[in-house]
Protein backbone atom coordinates (compact mmCIF):
# COMPACT_ATOMS: atom_id res chain seq x y z
CA UNK A 1 0.00 0.00 0.00
CA UNK A 2 1.25 3.45 -0.89
CA UNK A 3 2.25 5.83 1.86
CA UNK A 4 0.64 9.28 1.97
CA UNK A 5 3.73 11.02 0.61
CA UNK A 6 4.01 8.50 -2.24
CA UNK A 7 0.35 9.02 -3.12
CA UNK A 8 0.83 12.81 -3.04
CA UNK A 9 3.84 12.61 -5.36
CA UNK A 10 2.04 10.28 -7.79
CA UNK A 11 -1.12 12.43 -7.80
CA UNK A 12 0.95 15.60 -8.35
CA UNK A 13 2.99 14.20 -11.24
CA UNK A 14 -0.14 12.77 -12.89
CA UNK A 15 -2.01 16.06 -12.45
CA UNK A 16 0.93 17.86 -14.00
CA UNK A 17 0.93 15.44 -16.93
CA UNK A 18 -2.77 16.21 -17.45
CA UNK A 19 -2.13 19.97 -17.32
CA UNK A 20 0.78 19.72 -19.77
CA UNK A 21 -1.44 17.63 -22.05
CA UNK A 22 -4.12 20.35 -21.92
CA UNK A 23 -1.48 22.82 -23.15
CA UNK A 24 -0.95 20.47 -26.13
CA UNK A 25 2.65 19.94 -25.15
CA UNK A 26 4.06 16.44 -25.74
CA UNK A 27 4.86 14.46 -22.60
CA UNK A 28 5.92 11.04 -21.42
CA UNK A 29 5.67 9.60 -17.94
CA UNK A 30 8.45 7.25 -16.85
CA UNK A 31 7.63 4.89 -14.00
CA UNK A 32 10.13 4.33 -11.16
CA UNK A 33 12.80 1.70 -11.73
CA UNK A 34 15.81 0.43 -9.84
CA UNK A 35 18.20 2.95 -11.37
CA UNK A 36 15.83 5.91 -10.89
CA UNK A 37 13.34 5.13 -8.12
CA UNK A 38 10.96 8.04 -8.85
CA UNK A 39 8.35 8.85 -11.48
CA UNK A 40 9.70 11.28 -14.09
CA UNK A 41 7.52 13.47 -16.27
CA UNK A 42 9.31 14.57 -19.44
CA UNK A 43 8.08 17.24 -21.81
CA UNK A 44 9.59 19.34 -24.58
CA UNK A 45 9.71 23.13 -24.42
CA UNK A 46 9.68 24.40 -28.01
CA UNK A 47 10.35 27.74 -29.70
CA UNK A 48 12.76 29.07 -27.09
CA UNK A 49 14.59 32.25 -28.03
CA UNK A 50 14.95 33.64 -31.53
CA UNK A 51 16.58 30.42 -32.66
CA UNK A 52 13.36 28.62 -31.63
CA UNK A 53 15.32 25.96 -29.79
CA UNK A 54 13.77 22.94 -28.11
CA UNK A 55 14.79 21.93 -24.60
CA UNK A 56 13.71 18.84 -22.70
CA UNK A 57 12.19 19.45 -19.26
CA UNK A 58 12.27 16.66 -16.68
CA UNK A 59 10.08 16.99 -13.60
CA UNK A 60 10.40 14.64 -10.64
CA UNK A 61 10.30 14.54 -6.87
CA UNK A 62 13.67 14.11 -5.25
CA UNK A 63 14.08 10.90 -3.29
CA UNK A 64 14.25 11.47 0.47
CA UNK A 65 15.69 8.76 2.71
CA UNK A 66 13.15 6.95 4.89
CA UNK A 67 14.87 8.21 8.04
CA UNK A 68 14.63 11.85 6.94
CA UNK A 69 11.07 11.29 5.77
CA UNK A 70 9.93 10.99 9.42
CA UNK A 71 10.88 14.63 10.02
CA UNK A 72 10.00 16.02 6.61
CA UNK A 73 6.56 17.59 6.26
CA UNK A 74 7.14 18.38 2.61
CA UNK A 75 8.08 16.87 -0.73
CA UNK A 76 10.84 18.40 -2.79
CA UNK A 77 10.26 18.68 -6.54
CA UNK A 78 12.78 19.42 -9.30
CA UNK A 79 12.53 21.00 -12.75
CA UNK A 80 15.64 20.03 -14.72
CA UNK A 81 16.88 20.67 -18.27
CA UNK A 82 20.09 19.84 -20.08
CA UNK A 83 21.17 22.83 -22.17
CA UNK A 84 24.36 21.40 -23.63
CA UNK A 85 26.37 18.17 -23.79
CA UNK A 86 30.09 17.61 -24.26
CA UNK A 87 31.10 21.13 -23.28
CA UNK A 88 34.54 21.77 -24.75
CA UNK A 89 37.46 22.67 -22.51
CA UNK A 90 38.24 25.72 -24.70
CA UNK A 91 34.92 27.35 -23.86
CA UNK A 92 34.91 26.42 -20.16
CA UNK A 93 36.41 29.67 -18.84
CA UNK A 94 34.08 31.85 -20.86
CA UNK A 95 31.11 29.71 -19.91
CA UNK A 96 32.06 29.87 -16.24
CA UNK A 97 32.00 33.66 -16.36
CA UNK A 98 28.67 33.75 -18.19
CA UNK A 99 27.04 31.14 -15.92
CA UNK A 100 28.14 33.20 -12.95
CA UNK A 101 26.49 36.30 -14.43
CA UNK A 102 23.29 34.38 -15.23
CA UNK A 103 23.00 32.93 -11.74
CA UNK A 104 23.14 36.49 -10.38
CA UNK A 105 20.16 37.61 -12.50
CA UNK A 106 18.01 34.46 -12.67
CA UNK A 107 14.77 34.80 -10.68
CA UNK A 108 14.72 31.09 -9.80
CA UNK A 109 17.07 28.09 -9.75
CA UNK A 110 20.57 27.87 -11.10
CA UNK A 111 22.57 27.07 -14.19
CA UNK A 112 25.46 24.72 -13.60
CA UNK A 113 28.03 22.44 -15.16
CA UNK A 114 27.71 18.84 -14.04
CA UNK A 115 29.29 15.47 -14.84
CA UNK A 116 32.90 16.70 -14.74
CA UNK A 117 31.99 20.00 -16.36
CA UNK A 118 30.67 18.27 -19.49
CA UNK A 119 26.94 18.87 -19.09
CA UNK A 120 25.37 22.31 -18.94
CA UNK A 121 22.05 22.29 -17.15
CA UNK A 122 19.39 24.38 -15.46
CA UNK A 123 17.46 23.27 -12.43
CA UNK A 124 14.93 24.64 -9.98
CA UNK A 125 13.97 22.79 -6.81
CA UNK A 126 11.23 23.80 -4.42
CA UNK A 127 9.05 22.29 -1.70
CA UNK A 128 5.40 21.32 -1.94
CA UNK A 129 3.27 20.58 1.12
CA UNK A 130 1.19 17.44 1.23
CA UNK A 131 -1.75 19.43 2.59
CA UNK A 132 -1.85 21.75 -0.44
CA UNK A 133 -5.03 21.10 -2.38
CA UNK A 134 -5.04 20.22 -6.08
CA UNK A 135 -5.88 23.78 -7.18
CA UNK A 136 -3.03 25.24 -5.14
CA UNK A 137 -0.58 22.69 -6.57
CA UNK A 138 -1.73 23.35 -10.14
CA UNK A 139 -1.48 27.12 -9.77
CA UNK A 140 1.97 26.92 -8.19
CA UNK A 141 3.23 24.55 -10.88
CA UNK A 142 1.73 26.80 -13.59
CA UNK A 143 3.59 29.77 -12.13
CA UNK A 144 6.87 27.85 -11.85
CA UNK A 145 6.51 26.56 -15.41
CA UNK A 146 5.85 30.12 -16.67
CA UNK A 147 8.95 31.54 -14.94
CA UNK A 148 11.08 28.55 -15.98
CA UNK A 149 10.05 28.83 -19.64
CA UNK A 150 10.49 32.62 -19.61
CA UNK A 151 14.01 32.21 -18.21
CA UNK A 152 14.97 29.69 -20.88
CA UNK A 153 13.32 31.78 -23.60
CA UNK A 154 15.37 34.79 -22.52
CA UNK A 155 18.78 33.16 -22.09
CA UNK A 156 18.98 29.89 -24.07
CA UNK A 157 20.33 31.47 -27.26
CA UNK A 158 23.12 33.29 -25.44
CA UNK A 159 23.99 30.22 -23.35
CA UNK A 160 24.28 27.91 -26.33
CA UNK A 161 26.31 30.49 -28.29
CA UNK A 162 28.79 30.87 -25.41
CA UNK A 163 28.94 27.09 -24.89
CA UNK A 164 29.72 26.61 -28.59
CA UNK A 165 32.47 29.24 -28.45
CA UNK A 166 30.71 31.52 -30.95
CA UNK A 167 30.17 34.28 -28.38
CA UNK A 168 32.47 35.48 -25.59
CA UNK A 169 31.20 35.88 -22.04
CA UNK A 170 31.66 39.67 -21.95
CA UNK A 171 29.82 40.06 -25.23
CA UNK A 172 26.99 37.81 -24.03
CA UNK A 173 26.69 39.73 -20.76
CA UNK A 174 26.57 43.02 -22.65
CA UNK A 175 23.74 41.68 -24.82
CA UNK A 176 21.83 40.51 -21.76
CA UNK A 177 22.24 43.84 -19.99
CA UNK A 178 21.21 45.81 -23.05
CA UNK A 179 18.10 43.66 -23.44
CA UNK A 180 19.40 42.06 -26.62
CA UNK A 181 19.69 38.80 -24.75
CA UNK A 182 19.30 36.37 -27.62
CA UNK A 183 22.99 35.93 -28.12
CA UNK A 184 22.88 36.93 -31.76
CA UNK A 185 25.90 38.67 -33.20
CA UNK A 186 25.11 42.09 -34.64
Amino acid at each position, binding site marked *: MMKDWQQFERNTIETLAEEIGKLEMPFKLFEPEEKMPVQILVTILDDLGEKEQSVKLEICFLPIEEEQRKDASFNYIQFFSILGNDIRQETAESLLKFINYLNTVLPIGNIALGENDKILCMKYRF*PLLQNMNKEQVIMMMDAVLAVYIHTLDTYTDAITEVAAGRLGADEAIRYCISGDNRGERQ
Partner: protein
Amino acid sequence: MGVRKELEKRLLDRIAQELGALGFSTETVLPEGERREAVLLISPENLGDREDKLQVEASFLPRKEEEIEQYGYNVLQLFSCLRESLSPGTCNELARAVLRLNPKIPGGALGIDERKKMLYYKSSIILTDNMDERVGYSLIEIQLGIFLNTLDRCNDVLMDIADGRRTADEAIKKRLI
Protein backbone atom coordinates in the same frame (compact mmCIF):
# COMPACT_ATOMS: atom_id res chain seq x y z
CA MET B 1 -1.32 49.76 -0.32
CA GLY B 2 -2.64 47.14 -2.79
CA VAL B 3 -4.04 43.77 -1.69
CA ARG B 4 -0.90 41.99 -2.79
CA LYS B 5 1.44 44.38 -1.03
CA GLU B 6 -0.62 43.86 2.12
CA LEU B 7 -0.29 40.08 1.75
CA GLU B 8 3.47 40.42 1.24
CA LYS B 9 3.76 42.61 4.32
CA ARG B 10 1.65 40.20 6.39
CA LEU B 11 3.83 37.30 5.28
CA LEU B 12 7.05 39.12 6.13
CA ASP B 13 5.56 40.18 9.48
CA ARG B 14 4.51 36.62 10.18
CA ILE B 15 7.98 35.26 9.31
CA ALA B 16 9.47 37.87 11.67
CA GLN B 17 7.05 36.87 14.42
CA GLU B 18 7.54 33.12 14.05
CA LEU B 19 11.32 33.38 13.74
CA GLY B 20 11.39 35.69 16.74
CA ALA B 21 9.63 32.98 18.75
CA LEU B 22 12.37 30.56 17.64
CA GLY B 23 15.04 32.92 18.95
CA PHE B 24 16.09 34.52 15.67
CA SER B 25 16.73 38.22 15.65
CA THR B 26 14.87 40.00 12.82
CA GLU B 27 14.44 43.53 11.55
CA THR B 28 12.16 44.90 8.82
CA VAL B 29 13.55 47.55 6.49
CA LEU B 30 10.75 49.43 4.74
CA PRO B 31 10.85 50.59 1.08
CA GLU B 32 12.69 53.85 0.70
CA GLY B 33 14.22 55.71 -2.25
CA GLU B 34 15.32 53.26 -4.93
CA ARG B 35 14.37 50.26 -2.77
CA ARG B 36 10.80 49.42 -3.81
CA GLU B 37 10.29 46.38 -1.64
CA ALA B 38 10.38 45.83 2.12
CA VAL B 39 13.24 43.58 3.28
CA LEU B 40 13.19 41.35 6.33
CA LEU B 41 16.68 40.95 7.77
CA ILE B 42 17.11 37.64 9.58
CA SER B 43 20.10 36.89 11.80
CA PRO B 44 20.38 33.11 12.19
CA GLU B 45 22.53 31.39 14.78
CA ASN B 46 26.22 31.13 13.96
CA LEU B 47 26.86 28.98 10.92
CA GLY B 48 29.39 26.18 10.32
CA ASP B 49 32.48 25.40 12.41
CA ARG B 50 33.61 28.98 11.93
CA GLU B 51 30.36 30.11 13.55
CA ASP B 52 30.12 33.02 11.13
CA LYS B 53 27.38 35.53 11.71
CA LEU B 54 25.62 35.93 8.38
CA GLN B 55 22.50 37.86 7.64
CA VAL B 56 19.67 36.58 5.44
CA GLU B 57 17.54 39.07 3.52
CA ALA B 58 13.99 37.99 2.67
CA SER B 59 12.15 40.12 0.13
CA PHE B 60 9.73 39.86 -2.76
CA LEU B 61 11.37 40.43 -6.14
CA PRO B 62 10.28 43.79 -7.57
CA ARG B 63 7.85 43.50 -10.49
CA LYS B 64 5.61 45.83 -12.38
CA GLU B 65 2.09 46.06 -10.90
CA GLU B 66 0.47 45.00 -14.22
CA GLU B 67 2.72 41.92 -14.39
CA ILE B 68 1.73 40.93 -10.88
CA GLU B 69 -1.98 41.30 -11.64
CA GLN B 70 -1.61 39.37 -14.90
CA TYR B 71 0.28 36.36 -13.63
CA GLY B 72 -1.05 35.91 -10.12
CA TYR B 73 2.15 35.03 -8.32
CA ASN B 74 5.07 36.60 -6.51
CA VAL B 75 8.64 35.45 -6.02
CA LEU B 76 10.12 35.61 -2.53
CA GLN B 77 13.90 35.62 -2.54
CA LEU B 78 16.22 34.70 0.31
CA PHE B 79 19.64 36.27 -0.12
CA SER B 80 22.82 36.23 1.91
CA CYS B 81 26.09 38.03 1.24
CA LEU B 82 28.88 35.68 2.35
CA ARG B 83 31.82 38.00 1.62
CA GLU B 84 32.29 41.41 -0.03
CA SER B 85 35.22 43.38 -1.50
CA LEU B 86 36.87 40.32 -3.02
CA SER B 87 40.02 40.67 -5.11
CA PRO B 88 39.80 39.59 -8.80
CA GLY B 89 41.97 36.52 -8.08
CA THR B 90 39.78 35.46 -5.18
CA CYS B 91 36.66 36.00 -7.32
CA ASN B 92 38.08 33.56 -9.89
CA GLU B 93 38.90 30.91 -7.29
CA LEU B 94 35.48 31.22 -5.70
CA ALA B 95 33.75 31.15 -9.09
CA ARG B 96 35.40 27.77 -9.76
CA ALA B 97 34.32 26.47 -6.37
CA VAL B 98 30.78 27.76 -6.82
CA LEU B 99 30.53 26.16 -10.25
CA ARG B 100 31.33 22.82 -8.62
CA LEU B 101 28.96 23.35 -5.70
CA ASN B 102 25.87 24.58 -7.56
CA PRO B 103 24.91 21.19 -9.06
CA LYS B 104 25.14 19.67 -5.57
CA ILE B 105 23.29 22.12 -3.36
CA PRO B 106 19.63 21.32 -2.70
CA GLY B 107 18.31 24.62 -4.06
CA GLY B 108 19.07 28.17 -5.13
CA ALA B 109 22.42 29.42 -6.43
CA LEU B 110 25.78 30.34 -5.03
CA GLY B 111 27.48 33.01 -7.10
CA ILE B 112 29.81 35.94 -7.46
CA ASP B 113 28.39 39.37 -8.18
CA GLU B 114 31.26 40.70 -10.32
CA ARG B 115 30.01 44.27 -10.05
CA LYS B 116 30.00 44.26 -6.27
CA LYS B 117 32.84 41.71 -5.93
CA MET B 118 30.55 39.77 -3.64
CA LEU B 119 30.10 36.06 -2.90
CA TYR B 120 26.43 35.34 -2.26
CA TYR B 121 23.85 32.61 -1.86
CA LYS B 122 20.26 33.09 -2.93
CA SER B 123 17.17 30.97 -3.24
CA SER B 124 13.61 31.73 -4.34
CA ILE B 125 10.13 30.41 -3.79
CA ILE B 126 7.09 31.22 -5.89
CA LEU B 127 3.92 32.05 -3.96
CA THR B 128 0.59 32.14 -5.77
CA ASP B 129 -2.54 34.20 -5.19
CA ASN B 130 -4.72 31.26 -4.22
CA MET B 131 -2.33 30.13 -1.48
CA ASP B 132 -3.55 30.90 1.99
CA GLU B 133 -1.17 32.59 4.39
CA ARG B 134 -0.58 29.40 6.39
CA VAL B 135 0.57 27.46 3.31
CA GLY B 136 2.68 30.41 2.11
CA TYR B 137 4.37 30.71 5.49
CA SER B 138 5.05 26.95 5.72
CA LEU B 139 6.72 26.97 2.30
CA ILE B 140 8.88 29.95 3.25
CA GLU B 141 9.83 28.28 6.53
CA ILE B 142 10.91 25.10 4.72
CA GLN B 143 12.85 27.09 2.13
CA LEU B 144 14.58 29.06 4.88
CA GLY B 145 15.51 25.83 6.69
CA ILE B 146 17.08 24.42 3.50
CA PHE B 147 18.79 27.78 2.88
CA LEU B 148 20.39 27.86 6.33
CA ASN B 149 21.37 24.20 6.12
CA THR B 150 23.13 24.85 2.78
CA LEU B 151 24.96 27.85 4.22
CA ASP B 152 25.93 25.79 7.25
CA ARG B 153 27.49 23.14 4.99
CA CYS B 154 29.14 25.41 2.40
CA ASN B 155 30.26 28.54 4.22
CA ASP B 156 33.40 27.12 5.91
CA VAL B 157 35.05 25.80 2.74
CA LEU B 158 34.12 28.92 0.76
CA MET B 159 35.61 31.14 3.46
CA ASP B 160 38.79 29.03 3.45
CA ILE B 161 39.08 29.75 -0.27
CA ALA B 162 38.17 33.43 0.20
CA ASP B 163 40.88 33.78 2.86
CA GLY B 164 43.47 32.00 0.67
CA ARG B 165 43.84 29.04 3.05
CA ARG B 166 43.14 26.65 0.19
CA THR B 167 42.50 26.85 -3.55
CA ALA B 168 39.36 25.64 -5.30
CA ASP B 169 41.38 22.78 -6.80
CA GLU B 170 42.62 21.68 -3.39
CA ALA B 171 39.05 21.74 -2.05
CA ILE B 172 37.89 19.69 -5.04
CA LYS B 173 40.73 17.15 -4.63
CA LYS B 174 39.92 16.75 -0.94
CA ARG B 175 36.25 16.31 -1.91
CA LEU B 176 35.25 19.25 0.26
CA ILE B 177 33.18 20.56 -2.63
